[in-house]
């Protein structure tokens, strides 16, 4: 766990938030957005969404680091069933 202050940025913050939007940053943020959509469509855990949730609902609370988050999200699936269709 790493502690962090309310509203602080962590891994996964879109690059466009950091500086003036140049073509490269714009492309990077577009890529990040596409990657996020694909990730959600595939049903993969989304660290950015988790950070947004923690920011909005539990400001100031300790958050999981990205590797911890993914590990925990995956391990939870072992006890549940997500049938795929025929």
């Amino acid at each position, binding site marked *: 766990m790493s502690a962090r202050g309310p509203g602080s940025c962590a891994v996964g913050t879109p690059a466009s938030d950091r500086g003036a939007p140049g073509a490269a940053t714009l492309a990077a943020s577009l890529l990040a957005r596409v990657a996020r959509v694909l*990730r*959600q469509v595939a049903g993969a855990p989304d660290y950015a*969404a988790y950070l947004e949730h923690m920011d909005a609902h539990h400001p100031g609370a300790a958050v999981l680091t990205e590797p911890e988050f993914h590990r925990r999200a995956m391990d939870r699936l072992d006890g549940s069933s997500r049938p795929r269709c025929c």
Partner: protein
Amino acid sequence: MQRLSSMILWCAVAVVGAAAFGALALGRGESVSAVWLVTAALAVYFIAYRFYSRFIATRVLGLDDSRPTPAVRHNDGLDYVPTNRWVVFGHHFAAIAGAGPLVGPVLAAQMGYLPGTLWILAGVVVAGAVQDFIVLFASVRRDGSSLGQMIRMELGPLAGALALVGVLAIMIIILAVLALVVVKALTASPWGCFTIAATIPIALLMGLYMRVLRPGRIGEASIIGVVLLLLALVYGRTVADDAVLGPLFTLSGPAIAWALIIYGGVAASLPVWLMLAPRDYLSTFLKIGTVVALAIGIYLVAPPLAMPRTTLFIDGSGPVFSGKLFPFLFITIACGAVSGFHSLISSGTTPKMIEKESHMRLVGFGGMLAESFVATMALTAACVLDPGIYFSMNSPAAIIGTTAADAAHVISGWGFTITPELITQTAADIGEKSILSRAGGAPTLAVGMAKILGSALGGKALEAFWYHFAILFEALFILTAVDAGTRAGRFMIQDILGHLWRPLGNTAFLPGNVLATVLCVSAWGYFLYQGVVDPLGGINTLWQLFGVGNQMLAGIALVLGTTVLVKMKRERYAWVTLVPTGWLLVTTLTAGLEKIFHPDPKIGFLALAHKFGAAAAEGRVLAPAKSIAEMQRVIFNNYLDAAVCGLFVLLVVAMCVLAARTCLRALGEARPSVVEIPPGVSGATT
């Protein structure tokens, strides 16, 4: 003004759709372009979505965006995440669309392209999309409950227990038939076997990459996975031609069946991150990419439909499956028109992602329309093939023999002229030794896809590559379904065992775990193995059993939907679910009872068992069985199939009786009696 332009737009859609149907149904020319079929389908989907789904959303269900959804109420950034509706649509589509909408329409193509097309389109609008939508709605209003929980809540504990048994039985048949599709596609195909086998280490590698090397880097891992898969696909041919490796990967049907059975047991016991999750990502990306490519391919190539509008086989004498158009077409095409299995997905992860109630229209109704579109394309791919090739690939060896010359002779006799040379040439074009009797949809679809994608990209030279790509694409998500399905089956068995001895129900208890996994794998493995060694084909028996079960489950889900509507005091709209329920009951009860009791041994399980039983008693061996022992096996399996079919029939009848009782009681009450989360409750639990 806006209203006027909208009216003009929808009139235009209707006119295009009508013109497309006109071309399909009345065209007198030599052949009709497949573009008409796809266009007619798209027009139906758009009109149904715009008008019927809106009617259901606003009038029947009364979707209300001020009511917090489970994703909003329990938002934890992990399991419950309010998600953009197009993303949920994509996720839901990827979860519901598997091999089902590919296999059924290909088998049904033996009756011509028109019956299948009409049932897919009518079925999805009236039944399939309605079922998915209403189950999703009911689940969202019940805090994301599963189908089983909702049946227990609304119809009582007895109905809940019956539903659990029914779902488990259907799951076992589904797993067996899906695995059988893979066996039929890979038998004696070293190229295919090598590529599919390669997906296992590739998935493990991706899993380790995402867990250990670069946690959570799904994009990177997926790109690596896709590149490795393509390499496996390309070098599969080299392996197949190799003097040492080629024979090593040339496996018989029973050998592949055993491999799949062992694989299923092991895969379902591994942690999700190691194998299931990575392969699920791969198969999702591949699935969406291929479906889009196929749609573009059909429009670019505009292949003519080679299959006639209807064939002589609507009378029930078809080689692919026996039985008349009514009722057997309606159980052969399940997924794509209406699939009961979707009710498990609509009440699974999807309700936990819905942000607003109004989004359910796109996700529930729209998602099923998208799956139906996949079914339409599968039917198209089967119907652009030369019918002679289609029947060579889909008829069992007992009917067409095992050589190209025999097959060409028999099939030409049906009026579909074909030469042995064309059969062997087609096999050579796709890099296989034989295409005969590869029933089960995947190979036929693959040849059709290879033809369409090959014409669009790469021509004849790449046809073999596209064929094996299509096999890989289908086998990949079948393996995912086998893995995930065995897991789901294990939990259901543990749920049931827990009632006998409590510790067995604990999913963390290893012996209980192993026992349930072994039981689940043995159950579907038995049906799979019998299907593989069945000289009568296997697929035609198992697929119909699956169709009956799946449509029965759809009937049960729609019965639940009706009960929900009645309990909401919206009984004046109950026809929305009652009409499809009625149709499903009529078709599946007829089909179910005919499968059991029909006097023709080609259709009725009992008739076949009696025929073989009588012969065995006299010591005669009936072809295609080769010994008395084989005869005994045919007899036993047909009694077993009759029993499974009877179980489905009894379940659905019992469910109807229980639901009718609940509905009558609810009709007598003055106020709504549904068990929903009240509108005002928004307390987050995290």
